[in-house]
Each structure stands twice: as structure tokens, then as C-alpha cells.
């Protein structure tokens, strides 16, 4: 008797699931884009209306959720401040990419397809990871959508020509950041014994390669290692670092990991060796390791009202890793506004509008005007900002 | 009735586990169409003997010959293919397969069709599949209505204890073995079932043409079926011969029957 009821329950559940699937497939507003619309969506006219939709892809959940949340906060911050002061409103259609998560890029792919198929989405902010971009390229381009990433730095993404006109980014590529860091180490600090540790993720290996190349060319002694991003026990790795090393370069993307590494260096009696991170570690938690910590970051404008406002709204926490995502949202929002001047627009028009973005330095939190070159990279930024910790936060120093 | 040809021969068989000698210097012969019972107290090495013959354990020294061919070192499935099949004292049916499937599965060794052919169901594969079904039904038919008809599609776990024992025998028969090794076929059965099993074992030899080596505790059964009885104690053969001879052998009585006779008889 009991088993029978359990069977009935199971059957009901299964039936319910099947029904729900079909129902959902019907119910979602995506139906507006007819099955064949994918190819034609490029030129399909979309009424802008009062509320415009920005597609937003970020790792809301999963292992990288700690940085994803920052991007969510900054994107939402742009939308909410914009909506307070404008008659037209923006809405984020968020797709969780679950960067580094169980099913890999599958979630990002599904998200990209959903955005591409959702006719009211005009442009996309994100995705966060370079590999995710590689994965979603076809889906987004088939849908005619442009995307602006605030955190993918692999140089080849924009320079290999596959995504020209579709991909833009508000964070400069490794090709700019790497040499900045390397030259600082060589010329300013005049160090010659350097240890480089990447975190085996695509962002990190790219930067580490770029720095290693410059350092080696200049004849410095460079040791290279890699450590899994999932690891937080670095003691044996630290043991391997020679005591006469002058600086350890760790271009990682999780600031707390950088902090843990720094603290463990101190605990191992190697606290005198200098540390240097990259924009992924530009965060007060990494700076708190001590005054011997350096970092590179795109120049944020410390006096920017935007940053002040964000800090106020988020308990004083900077969450700077997400700041370029603000810029990315700003770029997309701005472009949609311009493309929508006549009340309706196409995705192609939004792409063109993004391409011709001109946000003056005063309105940009990155300290310089936002404009894109042919490849989709910032044309206004040729150099990274250099920072040194004062023990609690990073302060800019001269390169 | 009993032929003269030697079918199975054990020569100076030895097996120890961690210093404990479980089978010591054992010689034994089983002739064609013979029913041989192995008796002995618990721990005498009876089941170990079966494990050695079927290749589950490898003897430390000695030979096991089937038709003059040495089996030592062969994989168990190879030995079964050559004609020795067994049942288990503890019952090891494929419980979550149906009665018929149990018997069909045991025909793996003498069938040929590979995975790829069965995937596309070539005519040859179908023919063989039909043959497997036929043979399974034939073997199950041997047990009268005990394992017939609608019981074929029941899962083995739903069988009663006695029927599980029968199914194990049917499964062993399906390997197309010539010798059946039955490990306590009457264990846990009531008197009536025990009687049935005794008759069945006789029928297996007479109608089925099998040679049978059986381990049994129940002296009724042993008496009823055996052409010959071998008594083991601590891995050593202490007596061999007709039931009467062995049962009255003083060493056997001392080792075993002296304690048990009153209980079982």
C-alpha cells in the first residue's frame, strides 16, 4: 500500500515536471521572437518603450559567486541611479553563468541563447570570464547582440578578429596590464629576482605569461609556478619560494585568496618579500596584507561621485573588481538611449551605438573618457595605474 | 549405472590460508555418472574444496584434472565452460533478475553472439537468442511445476527458499556442465522439501546425465543419493567408500558423526 502511494507520488511528480517544462516553454515571453527570428533578429525593429532591457551575464552563483555578486551590485547600482533620474527606465535581464561551476559553460551558453532569443534585449553586459566569452560568441553573434565585458582580459579576444564589432570591454587587456607591471618591477623597483604564480585560470595565465615575457627579455631571474584557484593552503608553495626572492607576482582574481597568500607568507617568515597583484586583486582585503603590497589596476577616479555613492549604498565596501562592470552597464545603457532616440531600434543599431560610445572622463568612474577602438578595446587607456598599499587600502603611486 | 571413465581427478591438492592448512594432500576421483558426497564437520574444508575445483581459489600445489586436462590456474569462467558448474551454500542468485534471466545469463559461456551483432539483431543473433530461451525453459522444466510458467518472469528475490535452491541448480545446469557441484542443496529445508531434493538429485543423474559432487550435512540425503561418500576432517580425507562403510568408520564417527548422529538421524 505504501509503495503504491509512493509510486503514485513519483508518477505525479514526473508528470508535473513534464507538464511544467512544456508550460514554461510556452509561457516565457521569449515566444515573441518567432523560431526563425534568430537570423533576422539583427535587423528586427524593437519598440523601445518606457522600460528598456539590458541583458546581464554574471556568475551570480557557483564558485566565482564572490566576484559575480560585485558585478551584480555595480550593474544594479547603475540601473537604480539611472532610473531615479530618468523618465525611461532600464531593466536587467540577468542570466547566471555560474562561472567555474558544475556544468561548466553550459549555463553561460543557455543564458546567451536566452538573451539572443529574447527580443526585448538590446545589448548585453558581461559575461565575466574569457572562456565564457569564447563559448557564447556564436550564440550572441547569431542573435546580433553586442556585449560589453567588465572583466575579461585575454588579449586575443578582441584582436583575433572573430568578434569585431560585437565584443567590447571596459577593462584593458593583458597586453597593457602585463607590461605595465613588468616595467614597474624592472625599472622602478629595480628587482631582478621575481617569482610568478598564476592561479591556472585563463585570466591569470594570460597575465603571468605577459609579465614573464617582458621580465625574461630584460634578463631577470624568473621562477614560474601555478596553483589551483580552489586551493587556499599555500604553505608548501611558499616553502619553495627562495628567501632571496625580491617580489612575488600573483595575478589572481580572488582578492581573499591573495590576502590568504600574503598572510601565509608572513606566517612562514617570508613577510619581507614584496607582493604584487593585478586588477583582480585590487581590493582592500588584499591591501590589508601590509604595506609591502603592490598592485596594478585601471585608474579608478577616487574622487568620482559614483564611487562615493556606491560605497555609501554598500556599507563602505569598495568591491572594486565590479567597478568596470558599472562602466560596461553605463556603455550599454548609454548606447541604447541613443539608439532609441526614434522610439524603436534594432540590435544592429545598438551595436553601432556602442561602437561610437563617447563618455567623458567626468562621468566615468575609471578616470578617463570611455571610447572604443576598432577592436573593441578602450582607446583612451594605454597604461595601467600603479598602487601601493598603505596597510589598509591601495593608494596610487607614480609608475 | 556408474561408468568407469574418470571424469574429475584431484591429485595431492594443498591449500592453506595464513598458515592454516585447509586442504591437505587430497586425492580424489569422480567417475562419470557418479554421485559423490563430501561430508565432514564444519571447517573440514568442504566448501574450500569446491572453491578450488571451480577456480575461485588457486591451490598451493597439486593438480585438478577434468578429463585429463589440468584446470589449475584457469579462470573460473573458463573452468565452468569446460563443464564444471556449482551452486552456493549461501545462495548467490542474481536476485534482481527474473527467474528465466538467471538461467539465461548462465548460458554466456557456450553462446557466441557479440555485442555489436546483438545491437543490430542480426538473424544469427535472433536465432541464438531463441535457442537461449528454449534451453532456459527446458532446464526450468526439469523442476516440474516448481519453476514453470508465470514464475519465469518473477524476480528471483520473490522466490521461496526452496525454490531459490532449485533455481541455483537450474542455473548451474544451464551452463551445459557435465559435473554439478552442489553445496548443501538441502540446507534450511523442511523434511518434505528435503525429500524432494533427494529425489531430484537422483533424477539429475538418471535423466539429466550429470555427474554430481555434493556437500551435504543431512545424512538422510547423503544416504539416499550417494554412490560413494568421502569424509574430510581438517582438510584430510579420513574415509572413502559406500555410505555404510564411511558412516561406520571409527575415525569418521570420532570426527563427526559421534556428535551429530543422534541429532540428524
Amino acid at each position, binding site marked *: 500500500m505504501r509503495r503504491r502511494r509512493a509510486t503514485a507520488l513519483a508518477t505525479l511528480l514526473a508528470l508535473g515536471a513534464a507538464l511544467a517544462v512544456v508550460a514554461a516553454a510556452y509561457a516565457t515571453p521569449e515566444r515573441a521572437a518567432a523560431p526563425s527570428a534568430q537570423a533576422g533578429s539583427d535587423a528586427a525593429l524593437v519598440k523601445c518603450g518606457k522600460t528598456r532591457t539590458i541583458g546581464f551575464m554574471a556568475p551570480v*552563483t557557483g*564558485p566565482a*559567486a*564572490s566576484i*559575480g*555578486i560585485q558585478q551584480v551590485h555595480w550593474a544594479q547600482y547603475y540601473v537604480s541611479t539611472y532610473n531615479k533620474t530618468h523618465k525611461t527606465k532600464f531593466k536587467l535581464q540577468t542570466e547566471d553563468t555560474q562561472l567555474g561551476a558544475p556544468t561548466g559553460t553550459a549555463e553561460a551558453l543557455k543564458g546567451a541563447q536566452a538573451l539572443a532569443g529574447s527580443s526585448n534585449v538590446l545589448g548585453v553586459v558581461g559575461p565575466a570570464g574569457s572562456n565564457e566569452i569564447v563559448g557564447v560568441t556564436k550564440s550572441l553573434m547569431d542573435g546580433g547582440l553586442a556585449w560589453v565585458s567588465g572583466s575579461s582580459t585575454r588579449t586575443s579576444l578582441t584582436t583575433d578578429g572573430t568578434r569585431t564589432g560585437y565584443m567590447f570591454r571596459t577593462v584593458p587587456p593583458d597586453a597593457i596590464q602585463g607590461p605595465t607591471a613588468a616595467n614597474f618591477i624592472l625599472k622602478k623597483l629595480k628587482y631582478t629576482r621575481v617569482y610568478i*604564480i598564476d592561479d*591556472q585560470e585563463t585570466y591569470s595565465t594570460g597575465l603571468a605569461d605577459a609579465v614573464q615575457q617582458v621580465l625574461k627579455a630584460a634578463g631577470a631571474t624568473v621562477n614560474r*609556478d*601555478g*596553483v*589551483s584557484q*580552489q*586551493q*587556499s*593552503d*599555500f*604553505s*608548501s*608553495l*611558499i*616553502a*619553495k619560494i627562495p*628567501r632571496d626572492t625580491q617580489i612575488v607576482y600573483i595575478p589572481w582574481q*580572488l582578492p*581573499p*585568496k591573495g*590576502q*590568504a597568500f600574503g*598572510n*601565509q607568507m*608572513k*606566517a*612562514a*617568515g617570508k613577510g619581507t618579500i614584496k607582493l604584487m597583484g593585478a586588477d583582480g586583486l585590487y581590493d582592500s*582585503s588584499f591591501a590589508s596584507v601590509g604595506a609591502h603590497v603592490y598592485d596594478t589596476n585601471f585608474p579608478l577616479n577616487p574622487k568620482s561621485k559614483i564611487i562615493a555613492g556606491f560605497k555609501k549604498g554598500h556599507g563602505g565596501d569598495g568591491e572594486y573588481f565590479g567597478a568596470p562592470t558599472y562602466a560596461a552597464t553605463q556603455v550599454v545603457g548609454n548606447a541604447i538611449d541613443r539608439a532609441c532616440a526614434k522610439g524603436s531600434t534594432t540590435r544592429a543599431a545598438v551595436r553601432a551605438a556602442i561602437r561610437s560610445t563617447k563618455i567623458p572622463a567626468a562621468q566615468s568612474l575609471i578616470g578617463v573618457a570611455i571610447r572604443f577602438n576598432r577592436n573593441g578595446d578602450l582607446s583612451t587607456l594605454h597604461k595601467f595605474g600603479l598602487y601601493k598599499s598603505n596597510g589598509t587600502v591601495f593608494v596610487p603611486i607614480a609608475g | 549405472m556408474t561408468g568407469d571413465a574418470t571424469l574429475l581427478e584431484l591429485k595431492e591438492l594443498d591449500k592453506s*590460508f595464513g598458515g592454516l592448512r585447509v586442504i591437505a594432500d587430497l586425492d580424489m576421483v569422480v567417475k562419470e555418472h557418479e554421485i559423490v558426497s563430501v561430508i565432514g564437520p564444519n571447517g573440514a574444508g568442504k*566448501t574450500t574444496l*569446491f*572453491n578450488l575445483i571451480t577456480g*575461485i581459489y588457486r591451490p598451493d600445489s597439486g593438480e585438478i584434472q577434468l578429463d585429463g586436462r589440468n584446470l589449475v590456474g584457469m579462470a573460473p569462467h573458463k573452468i565452468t565452460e569446460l563443464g564444471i558448474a556449482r551452486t*552456493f*551454500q*549461501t545462495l548467490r542468485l542474481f536476485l534482481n533478475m527474473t527467474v528465466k534471466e538467471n538461467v539465461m545469463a548462465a548460458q554466456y559461456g557456450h553462446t557466441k553472439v557479440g555485442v555489436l551483432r546483438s545491437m543490430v539483431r542480426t538473424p544469427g543473433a535472433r536465432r541464438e537468442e531463441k535457442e537461449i530461451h528454449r534451453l532456459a525453459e527446458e532446464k526450468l522444466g526439469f523442476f516440474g511445476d516448481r519453476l514453470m510458467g508465470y514464475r519465469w518472469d518473477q524476480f528471483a528475490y520473490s522466490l521461496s527458499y526452496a525454490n531459490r535452491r532449485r533455481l541455483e541448480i537450474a542455473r548451474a545446469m544451464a551452463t551445459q556442465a557435465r559435473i554439478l557441484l552442489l553445496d548443501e542443496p538441502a540446507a534450511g529445508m523442511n523434511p518434505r522439501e528435503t525429500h524432494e531434493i533427494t529425489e531430484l538429485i537422483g533424477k539429475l543423474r538418471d535423466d539429466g546425465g550429470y555427474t554430481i559432487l555434493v556437500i551435504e550435512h543431512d545424512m538422510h540425503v547423503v544416504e539416499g543419493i550417494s554412490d560413494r561418500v568421502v569424509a574430510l576432517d581438517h582438510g584430510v580425507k579420513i574415509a572413502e567408500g559406500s555410505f555404510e562403510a564411511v558412516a561406520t568408520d571409527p575415525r569418521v564417527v570420532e570426527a563427526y558423526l559421534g556428535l551429530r548422529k543422534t541429532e540428524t538421524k
Partner: protein
Amino acid sequence: MNWSLFFDLTVSGLTLGSLYALIALGYSLVYGILKLLNFAHGDVYMIGAFLGWYALHALGGPVNPTFTGAVVLFLMFVVAMLGCGVLGVAIERFAYRPLRNAPRIAPLISALGVSIFLQNSALLIFGAAFRDYDTFDLIGVKTYNIGQLFFSVPQLLTVVAAIGLMVALTLFVARSRLGKAMRSTSFDREAASMMGIDVDRVISVTFFIGSALAGAAGVMFALVFGQIYHFMGFIAGLKGFTAAVLGGIGSIPGAMVGGLIVGLAESYATGYLPQGSTFQNLYVFALLILVILIRPSGLFGKAAISKV
């Protein structure tokens, strides 16, 4: 030979190894009795680290603790171990006990479900951000050295505490009534229950102890490495699992030795082998495969003779 490097690697390997050993003990104890791989064990360890964090902050935080450092530390361990112990018992009661007679794979899946559940509950409640222990100030970040042998207080604390706990456990299992009941249950569950042993209670106690050890390991990890997050249980669980298998799953000394071997192997691999830190896991796995192939039941495991 670069002795300084060798010492550093050894200290770090021993520290990690002690943690792995503590986790491995949980796997081994449970496996010994239920023949069940408790996939959720790594997540219990994670919860332990978080419980320690909450205890720390309830006691005033690392900078201005309500009591002296030693008392705070002690209370952190107590809270984490008790909390995890209760959690372990609850997991067993809810997710494993109803499945005692189910097919072998069912409790594995149930364990998987518990693991996913715990991980994401932690994400829900603790948030995605990393939490710092900041106890470097509380117990001193100072490094001591004997010659070229450098070690820090938390490292020393971890190794000593781990060894202490393991000795206590060994004594408990060998001497106490409950310990004896545990051993007999592990040997033959049905026979034990016929002998009047309350098997359910023994299993609960086993889960309590194993989980409490994981909780302690969680706090120790955080003390040494400073940082915790909701996903930390997976890798640690995998390493603990490896250690348990390496030592012979089901064996208490096996778990200890296995843990230390994995920890040291990891450390030496990082230090000495080409691309060590990159392929660290690969090297550890190679070692494991080697051991399994030579001794299929692990270093201290008893070869199971299948009874036919």
C-alpha cells in the same frame, strides 16, 4: 641538499597532513561501520570552520576578544565540534538510516544530496564572500625557528591537537565500552545487534565523533590558512577521502598515516617535482594509484577474503 626548503616543506606537509588525517578519520569510522562513503563529510568540515568563525565573533572577534586567546580558541573548538557532531548525527538519522537496506548506491546519492544541500545552505546564509579568521593577531603570527626549522604557532597547534585527538580516539575505541561496541558493530552488524548492542546508537556515536573531528579540522584549517568559504569542503573532502583509502579505509591508524602521507606527498611534490604546484594533485593521485595497485586494500586495510 637545501635543508631549509626541506624543513619548510616538511612542516607544511605535516600540518596539512594532520588536517587530512582528521578528515580521513571521519570517512574511515563511518565506512568501517556502515560501508558507506559519506560524501557530505567534506561539507561538515566546512560547516565546522564557519561555526568556529561565528563563535569567534560572538566572543568579541579576533581583535578585542572577550576572554584571553586560549579560552577563545578552546570555545571555538568546542562549538565547532559539538555543532558538527550534532549535524553529523542529524545527517545520519535523516539521510542514511532510512536507507540501510536499500541498494548500495542509494545512500551514496543521498549523501550527494546532503552535500549539495549543505554547500548551498552555507552560500545562502554565510554569503558568497570569503570570511577571514584574522586570528593571526589573536594567537600570534610570530614564527619560531629551531635552526633552519621554521614553524608558526597555529601550525604547531594543529599538529599537536590533531595527534592528541587521534590518540584520544584510539584509546576510546580500544578501551571504552562504546568503543568496543563500535568495533563489534563494524565487524558484523547483525551479530552485534543480536548480542544486545544498540546498533543505532553506536552508529549515531560514530557519526558524532567523525563529524566532530571534521569540525575540529575545519577550525584548525582556518587558524592556519586564515580563510573560509562555502566551497572549501570539496577539495578537502577529496584529499581526506584519498588519505582514508591510501591508509586502508576502515582503519584508524591507516587514516592517520594516510593523511600524513598525502600531506607530505603534496608538499614534497610542490617543492621538488617539475611543475610541482601545478600538477600537485596529479602526483598525489599517481601515488594513490600506485599504492592501490600494489596493495588493493590500502596500507593498513585488511584484504577482504570473500566468503563463498
